[in-house]
Protein backbone atom coordinates (compact mmCIF):
# COMPACT_ATOMS: atom_id res chain seq x y z
CA UNK A 1 0.00 0.00 0.00
CA UNK A 2 1.41 3.43 -0.89
CA UNK A 3 1.62 6.10 1.74
CA UNK A 4 0.37 9.66 1.35
CA UNK A 5 3.92 11.04 1.42
CA UNK A 6 4.45 9.10 -1.84
CA UNK A 7 1.80 11.29 -3.42
CA UNK A 8 3.58 14.46 -2.31
CA UNK A 9 6.82 13.19 -3.77
CA UNK A 10 5.05 12.31 -7.01
CA UNK A 11 3.47 15.76 -7.26
CA UNK A 12 6.84 17.41 -6.62
CA UNK A 13 8.45 15.29 -9.33
CA UNK A 14 5.68 16.00 -11.85
CA UNK A 15 5.87 19.71 -11.04
CA UNK A 16 9.59 19.82 -11.56
CA UNK A 17 9.44 18.13 -14.95
CA UNK A 18 6.60 20.32 -16.23
CA UNK A 19 7.30 21.79 -19.64
CA UNK A 20 4.99 23.92 -21.75
CA UNK A 21 2.97 21.86 -24.17
CA UNK A 22 1.74 22.73 -27.61
CA UNK A 23 -2.00 22.58 -28.06
CA UNK A 24 -3.12 19.57 -30.07
CA UNK A 25 -5.43 20.07 -33.03
CA UNK A 26 -9.04 19.04 -32.42
CA UNK A 27 -10.07 15.43 -33.15
CA UNK A 28 -12.23 16.63 -36.06
CA UNK A 29 -9.36 18.45 -37.77
CA UNK A 30 -6.99 15.55 -37.10
CA UNK A 31 -9.56 13.10 -38.51
CA UNK A 32 -10.02 15.18 -41.64
CA UNK A 33 -6.25 15.42 -42.15
CA UNK A 34 -5.63 11.72 -41.53
CA UNK A 35 -8.50 10.62 -43.77
CA UNK A 36 -7.50 12.94 -46.60
CA UNK A 37 -3.87 11.85 -46.61
CA UNK A 38 -4.78 8.18 -46.13
CA UNK A 39 -7.30 8.33 -48.98
CA UNK A 40 -4.79 10.07 -51.24
CA UNK A 41 -1.99 7.60 -50.49
CA UNK A 42 -4.41 4.64 -50.71
CA UNK A 43 -5.71 5.81 -54.10
CA UNK A 44 -2.18 6.41 -55.41
CA UNK A 45 -1.10 2.98 -54.23
CA UNK A 46 -4.10 1.20 -55.78
CA UNK A 47 -3.59 3.03 -59.06
CA UNK A 48 0.14 2.43 -58.83
CA UNK A 49 -0.48 -1.33 -58.77
CA UNK A 50 -2.62 -1.11 -61.92
CA UNK A 51 -5.37 0.81 -63.72
CA UNK A 52 -9.08 0.76 -62.84
CA UNK A 53 -10.91 -2.09 -64.52
CA UNK A 54 -12.59 -1.51 -67.88
CA UNK A 55 -16.29 -0.69 -67.57
CA UNK A 56 -16.22 0.43 -63.94
CA UNK A 57 -18.33 3.50 -64.71
CA UNK A 58 -20.99 1.36 -66.45
CA UNK A 59 -21.12 -0.91 -63.43
CA UNK A 60 -21.54 2.07 -61.13
CA UNK A 61 -24.44 3.33 -63.25
CA UNK A 62 -26.15 0.03 -64.05
CA UNK A 63 -25.55 -2.14 -60.98
CA UNK A 64 -27.00 -0.28 -57.98
CA UNK A 65 -25.41 -2.76 -55.58
CA UNK A 66 -21.90 -1.63 -56.47
CA UNK A 67 -22.64 2.02 -55.73
CA UNK A 68 -24.41 1.18 -52.48
CA UNK A 69 -21.56 -1.05 -51.33
CA UNK A 70 -19.09 1.71 -52.11
CA UNK A 71 -21.22 4.24 -50.24
CA UNK A 72 -21.33 1.94 -47.20
CA UNK A 73 -17.55 1.52 -47.51
CA UNK A 74 -16.98 5.27 -47.64
CA UNK A 75 -19.21 5.79 -44.59
CA UNK A 76 -17.27 3.04 -42.79
CA UNK A 77 -14.00 4.83 -43.51
CA UNK A 78 -15.39 8.19 -42.34
CA UNK A 79 -16.90 6.89 -39.09
CA UNK A 80 -13.99 4.61 -38.25
CA UNK A 81 -11.60 7.51 -38.83
CA UNK A 82 -13.73 9.78 -36.68
CA UNK A 83 -13.89 7.21 -33.89
CA UNK A 84 -10.10 6.68 -33.86
CA UNK A 85 -9.20 10.31 -33.34
CA UNK A 86 -12.00 10.87 -30.84
CA UNK A 87 -10.87 7.83 -28.87
CA UNK A 88 -7.41 9.36 -28.64
CA UNK A 89 -8.56 12.25 -26.44
CA UNK A 90 -9.86 11.33 -22.97
CA UNK A 91 -13.40 12.43 -22.21
CA UNK A 92 -14.44 13.20 -25.79
CA UNK A 93 -17.81 11.51 -26.41
CA UNK A 94 -17.26 8.69 -28.87
CA UNK A 95 -20.14 6.25 -28.39
CA UNK A 96 -22.24 7.69 -31.23
CA UNK A 97 -19.39 7.73 -33.76
CA UNK A 98 -18.35 4.23 -32.74
CA UNK A 99 -21.93 2.98 -33.12
CA UNK A 100 -22.18 4.58 -36.56
CA UNK A 101 -18.86 2.99 -37.53
CA UNK A 102 -20.14 -0.45 -36.48
CA UNK A 103 -23.46 0.12 -38.30
CA UNK A 104 -21.71 1.27 -41.49
CA UNK A 105 -19.40 -1.76 -41.40
CA UNK A 106 -22.38 -4.06 -40.84
CA UNK A 107 -24.22 -2.37 -43.72
CA UNK A 108 -21.20 -2.85 -46.00
CA UNK A 109 -20.87 -6.52 -45.05
CA UNK A 110 -24.66 -6.99 -45.14
CA UNK A 111 -24.99 -5.60 -48.67
CA UNK A 112 -22.23 -7.91 -49.87
CA UNK A 113 -23.80 -10.94 -48.17
CA UNK A 114 -27.22 -10.10 -49.64
CA UNK A 115 -25.68 -9.73 -53.11
CA UNK A 116 -23.83 -13.01 -52.59
CA UNK A 117 -27.02 -14.85 -51.60
CA UNK A 118 -29.04 -13.23 -54.38
CA UNK A 119 -26.40 -14.37 -56.86
CA UNK A 120 -26.68 -11.06 -58.74
CA UNK A 121 -24.57 -11.26 -61.89
CA UNK A 122 -21.52 -8.98 -61.71
CA UNK A 123 -18.80 -8.27 -64.22
CA UNK A 124 -15.74 -10.45 -63.76
CA UNK A 125 -13.56 -8.27 -65.95
CA UNK A 126 -10.31 -6.89 -64.62
CA UNK A 127 -9.53 -9.39 -61.86
CA UNK A 128 -6.32 -8.44 -60.07
CA UNK A 129 -4.54 -11.63 -59.03
CA UNK A 130 -2.93 -10.09 -55.95
CA UNK A 131 -5.67 -7.69 -54.93
CA UNK A 132 -5.63 -8.99 -51.34
CA UNK A 133 -1.94 -8.11 -50.98
CA UNK A 134 -2.46 -4.77 -52.74
CA UNK A 135 -5.29 -3.89 -50.34
CA UNK A 136 -3.16 -4.79 -47.35
CA UNK A 137 -0.06 -2.96 -48.59
CA UNK A 138 -1.99 0.13 -49.72
CA UNK A 139 -3.39 0.47 -46.21
CA UNK A 140 0.02 0.30 -44.50
CA UNK A 141 1.00 3.98 -45.02
CA UNK A 142 -2.34 5.06 -43.51
CA UNK A 143 -1.71 2.82 -40.51
CA UNK A 144 1.78 4.28 -39.99
CA UNK A 145 0.46 7.82 -40.32
CA UNK A 146 -2.38 7.09 -37.92
CA UNK A 147 0.04 5.65 -35.37
CA UNK A 148 2.21 8.76 -35.60
CA UNK A 149 -0.84 10.92 -34.95
CA UNK A 150 -2.00 8.73 -32.07
CA UNK A 151 1.42 8.73 -30.43
CA UNK A 152 1.08 12.47 -29.90
CA UNK A 153 -2.25 11.94 -28.18
CA UNK A 154 -3.49 9.92 -25.23
CA UNK A 155 -5.52 6.92 -26.38
CA UNK A 156 -6.83 5.01 -23.38
CA UNK A 157 -7.70 1.91 -25.39
CA UNK A 158 -4.54 1.31 -27.38
CA UNK A 159 -5.58 -2.02 -28.89
CA UNK A 160 -8.97 -0.74 -30.06
CA UNK A 161 -7.44 2.46 -31.47
CA UNK A 162 -4.80 0.42 -33.29
CA UNK A 163 -7.43 -1.93 -34.71
CA UNK A 164 -9.61 0.90 -35.98
CA UNK A 165 -6.59 2.69 -37.45
CA UNK A 166 -5.49 -0.40 -39.37
CA UNK A 167 -9.01 -1.30 -40.46
CA UNK A 168 -9.83 2.28 -41.48
CA UNK A 169 -6.58 2.65 -43.41
CA UNK A 170 -7.14 -0.60 -45.33
CA UNK A 171 -10.82 0.11 -45.88
CA UNK A 172 -9.81 2.98 -48.22
CA UNK A 173 -8.12 0.70 -50.79
CA UNK A 174 -10.82 -1.93 -50.15
CA UNK A 175 -13.46 0.57 -51.32
CA UNK A 176 -11.36 1.57 -54.33
CA UNK A 177 -10.92 -2.09 -55.24
CA UNK A 178 -14.64 -2.09 -56.12
CA UNK A 179 -13.55 -0.11 -59.16
CA UNK A 180 -10.05 -1.46 -59.64
CA UNK A 181 -10.77 -5.18 -59.29
CA UNK A 182 -13.87 -7.29 -59.85
CA UNK A 183 -16.89 -6.40 -57.72
CA UNK A 184 -18.16 -9.96 -57.32
CA UNK A 185 -19.46 -10.07 -53.70
CA UNK A 186 -17.71 -13.27 -52.60
CA UNK A 187 -14.44 -11.99 -54.00
CA UNK A 188 -14.86 -8.59 -52.34
CA UNK A 189 -15.59 -10.20 -48.98
CA UNK A 190 -12.62 -12.57 -49.03
CA UNK A 191 -10.00 -10.71 -51.05
CA UNK A 192 -10.73 -7.07 -50.15
CA UNK A 193 -12.36 -7.00 -46.73
CA UNK A 194 -10.46 -9.80 -45.02
CA UNK A 195 -7.13 -8.01 -45.65
CA UNK A 196 -8.68 -4.86 -44.17
CA UNK A 197 -9.61 -6.85 -41.07
CA UNK A 198 -6.13 -8.34 -40.98
CA UNK A 199 -4.52 -4.92 -41.11
CA UNK A 200 -6.86 -4.02 -38.26
CA UNK A 201 -5.46 -6.90 -36.22
CA UNK A 202 -1.92 -5.86 -37.11
CA UNK A 203 -2.84 -2.32 -36.02
CA UNK A 204 -4.18 -3.63 -32.71
CA UNK A 205 -0.86 -5.37 -32.02
CA UNK A 206 1.22 -2.40 -33.16
CA UNK A 207 -0.98 -0.06 -31.15
CA UNK A 208 -0.36 -1.98 -27.96
CA UNK A 209 3.36 -1.89 -28.65
CA UNK A 210 4.00 1.63 -29.86
CA UNK A 211 1.29 3.80 -28.35
CA UNK A 212 2.14 5.40 -25.02
CA UNK A 213 0.34 3.97 -22.00
CA UNK A 214 -1.36 6.91 -20.36
Amino acid at each position, binding site marked *: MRRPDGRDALIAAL*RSELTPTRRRVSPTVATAAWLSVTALIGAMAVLGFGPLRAGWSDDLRNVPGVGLEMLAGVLTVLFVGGAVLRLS*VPGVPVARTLTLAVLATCAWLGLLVVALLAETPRSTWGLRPFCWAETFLSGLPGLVLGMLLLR*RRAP*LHRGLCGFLTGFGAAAVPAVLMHLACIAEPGHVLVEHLVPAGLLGLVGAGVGRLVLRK*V
Partner: protein
Amino acid sequence: MVFAQAGDEEIYGRLLEELGSYLEALFRRLRIHPELIEDAVQDTLLAVHRARATYDAERPFGPWLLALARHKAIDLERWHGRRWARELQQVDTELVSWVAGERVETKMDLESALAALSESAREALLMTKLWGLSTEEGADAVGIAPSAFKSRVHRAVLLARRLLQGRRSR
Protein backbone atom coordinates in the same frame (compact mmCIF):
# COMPACT_ATOMS: atom_id res chain seq x y z
CA MET B 1 -4.93 23.22 -16.53
CA VAL B 2 -4.45 25.88 -19.15
CA PHE B 3 -1.76 27.48 -16.95
CA ALA B 4 -0.17 24.06 -16.51
CA GLN B 5 -0.08 23.63 -20.28
CA ALA B 6 1.73 26.95 -20.45
CA GLY B 7 4.32 25.62 -17.98
CA ASP B 8 3.30 27.35 -14.72
CA GLU B 9 4.77 24.99 -12.09
CA GLU B 10 3.23 26.76 -9.09
CA ILE B 11 -0.34 26.49 -10.33
CA TYR B 12 0.27 22.98 -11.65
CA GLY B 13 1.45 21.83 -8.20
CA ARG B 14 -1.66 23.30 -6.59
CA LEU B 15 -3.88 21.71 -9.22
CA LEU B 16 -2.34 18.26 -8.66
CA GLU B 17 -2.74 18.59 -4.89
CA GLU B 18 -6.40 19.53 -5.23
CA LEU B 19 -6.96 16.79 -7.77
CA GLY B 20 -5.36 14.31 -5.37
CA SER B 21 -7.89 15.07 -2.65
CA TYR B 22 -10.77 15.13 -5.12
CA LEU B 23 -9.75 11.80 -6.66
CA GLU B 24 -9.33 10.18 -3.26
CA ALA B 25 -12.89 11.14 -2.32
CA LEU B 26 -14.12 10.06 -5.74
CA PHE B 27 -12.53 6.61 -5.53
CA ARG B 28 -13.93 6.12 -2.03
CA ARG B 29 -17.38 7.01 -3.31
CA LEU B 30 -16.95 4.60 -6.19
CA ARG B 31 -16.15 1.89 -3.62
CA ILE B 32 -12.73 1.17 -5.04
CA HIS B 33 -10.89 -1.33 -2.88
CA PRO B 34 -9.39 0.70 0.01
CA GLU B 35 -5.97 -0.80 -0.57
CA LEU B 36 -6.03 0.51 -4.12
CA ILE B 37 -7.20 4.07 -3.56
CA GLU B 38 -3.77 5.63 -3.12
CA ASP B 39 -2.44 3.72 -6.13
CA ALA B 40 -5.43 4.83 -8.18
CA VAL B 41 -4.95 8.46 -7.15
CA GLN B 42 -1.23 8.44 -8.00
CA ASP B 43 -1.76 6.59 -11.28
CA THR B 44 -4.43 9.08 -12.28
CA LEU B 45 -2.18 12.04 -11.41
CA LEU B 46 0.52 10.48 -13.56
CA ALA B 47 -2.01 10.01 -16.37
CA VAL B 48 -3.08 13.66 -16.05
CA HIS B 49 0.58 14.63 -16.44
CA ARG B 50 1.13 12.41 -19.48
CA ALA B 51 -2.09 13.41 -21.20
CA ARG B 52 -2.04 17.12 -20.27
CA ALA B 53 -1.36 18.20 -23.85
CA THR B 54 -4.63 16.62 -25.01
CA TYR B 55 -6.79 18.77 -22.72
CA ASP B 56 -8.75 21.25 -24.78
CA ALA B 57 -9.65 24.42 -22.87
CA GLU B 58 -12.80 24.76 -24.94
CA ARG B 59 -14.12 21.51 -23.51
CA PRO B 60 -15.09 20.94 -19.86
CA PHE B 61 -12.31 19.63 -17.60
CA GLY B 62 -14.54 17.15 -15.69
CA PRO B 63 -15.15 14.56 -18.42
CA TRP B 64 -11.46 14.65 -19.40
CA LEU B 65 -10.35 13.98 -15.83
CA LEU B 66 -13.07 11.41 -15.15
CA ALA B 67 -12.18 9.44 -18.29
CA LEU B 68 -8.60 9.15 -17.03
CA ALA B 69 -9.67 8.34 -13.45
CA ARG B 70 -12.17 5.72 -14.56
CA HIS B 71 -9.65 4.08 -16.85
CA LYS B 72 -7.03 3.92 -14.11
CA ALA B 73 -9.50 2.56 -11.55
CA ILE B 74 -10.65 -0.18 -13.94
CA ASP B 75 -7.03 -1.04 -14.76
CA LEU B 76 -6.13 -1.34 -11.11
CA GLU B 77 -9.22 -3.31 -10.16
CA ARG B 78 -8.51 -5.73 -12.99
CA TRP B 79 -4.91 -6.13 -11.91
CA HIS B 80 -6.01 -6.46 -8.31
CA GLY B 81 -8.59 -9.09 -9.30
CA ARG B 82 -5.89 -11.15 -10.96
CA ARG B 83 -3.63 -10.74 -7.94
CA TRP B 84 -6.50 -11.73 -5.65
CA ALA B 85 -7.06 -14.88 -7.72
CA ARG B 86 -3.34 -15.71 -7.55
CA GLU B 87 -3.27 -15.15 -3.82
CA LEU B 88 -6.30 -17.33 -3.43
CA GLN B 89 -4.64 -20.11 -5.36
CA GLN B 90 -1.73 -20.26 -2.98
CA VAL B 91 -3.88 -19.45 -0.05
CA ASP B 92 -2.18 -19.86 3.33
CA THR B 93 -2.81 -22.89 5.43
CA GLU B 94 -2.81 -20.33 8.18
CA LEU B 95 -5.98 -18.73 6.83
CA VAL B 96 -7.53 -22.09 6.09
CA SER B 97 -6.95 -23.45 9.55
CA TRP B 98 -7.93 -20.18 11.18
CA VAL B 99 -11.23 -19.97 9.34
CA ALA B 100 -12.25 -23.61 9.36
CA GLY B 101 -10.48 -24.94 12.41
CA GLU B 102 -9.06 -27.63 10.16
CA ARG B 103 -7.97 -28.07 6.54
CA VAL B 104 -10.59 -27.60 3.89
CA GLU B 105 -10.91 -30.41 1.37
CA THR B 106 -10.15 -28.37 -1.71
CA LYS B 107 -9.15 -24.86 -2.60
CA MET B 108 -12.44 -24.72 -4.44
CA ASP B 109 -14.30 -25.01 -1.12
CA LEU B 110 -12.49 -22.00 0.25
CA GLU B 111 -12.90 -20.02 -2.94
CA SER B 112 -16.62 -20.59 -3.07
CA ALA B 113 -17.02 -19.87 0.64
CA LEU B 114 -15.16 -16.58 0.23
CA ALA B 115 -17.15 -15.79 -2.89
CA ALA B 116 -20.37 -16.29 -0.94
CA LEU B 117 -19.40 -13.61 1.60
CA SER B 118 -20.44 -10.03 1.08
CA GLU B 119 -17.76 -7.79 -0.44
CA SER B 120 -17.14 -5.94 2.81
CA ALA B 121 -16.89 -9.18 4.83
CA ARG B 122 -14.53 -10.80 2.32
CA GLU B 123 -12.44 -7.66 2.22
CA ALA B 124 -12.18 -7.54 6.02
CA LEU B 125 -11.25 -11.22 6.21
CA LEU B 126 -8.59 -11.04 3.53
CA MET B 127 -7.14 -7.81 4.88
CA THR B 128 -6.55 -9.21 8.35
CA LYS B 129 -5.94 -12.89 7.68
CA LEU B 130 -4.16 -12.91 4.36
CA TRP B 131 -2.52 -9.54 3.90
CA GLY B 132 -1.60 -9.26 7.56
CA LEU B 133 -3.13 -5.85 8.31
CA SER B 134 -3.84 -5.05 11.95
CA THR B 135 -7.39 -4.22 13.04
CA GLU B 136 -6.44 -0.52 13.24
CA GLU B 137 -4.86 -0.54 9.77
CA GLY B 138 -7.82 -2.37 8.28
CA ALA B 139 -10.30 -0.03 9.95
CA ASP B 140 -8.32 2.94 8.70
CA ALA B 141 -8.26 1.61 5.14
CA VAL B 142 -12.00 0.96 5.08
CA GLY B 143 -12.78 4.18 6.92
CA ILE B 144 -14.68 2.76 9.91
CA ALA B 145 -14.01 2.50 13.66
CA PRO B 146 -11.64 -0.28 14.77
CA SER B 147 -14.35 -1.87 16.93
CA ALA B 148 -16.74 -1.99 13.97
CA PHE B 149 -14.01 -3.45 11.78
CA LYS B 150 -13.22 -6.06 14.40
CA SER B 151 -16.82 -7.19 14.59
CA ARG B 152 -16.99 -7.24 10.78
CA VAL B 153 -14.00 -9.60 10.71
CA HIS B 154 -15.57 -11.72 13.43
CA ARG B 155 -18.87 -12.02 11.56
CA ALA B 156 -17.00 -12.86 8.34
CA VAL B 157 -15.06 -15.61 10.09
CA LEU B 158 -18.21 -17.14 11.60
CA LEU B 159 -20.00 -17.03 8.28
CA ALA B 160 -17.04 -18.49 6.36
CA ARG B 161 -16.69 -21.25 8.95
CA ARG B 162 -20.40 -22.07 8.71
CA LEU B 163 -20.23 -22.15 4.91
CA LEU B 164 -17.23 -24.47 4.95
CA GLN B 165 -18.79 -26.79 7.53
CA GLY B 166 -22.03 -26.87 5.55
CA ARG B 167 -20.08 -27.83 2.46
CA ARG B 168 -18.22 -30.62 4.26
CA SER B 169 -21.34 -32.14 5.84
CA ARG B 170 -22.99 -32.36 2.38
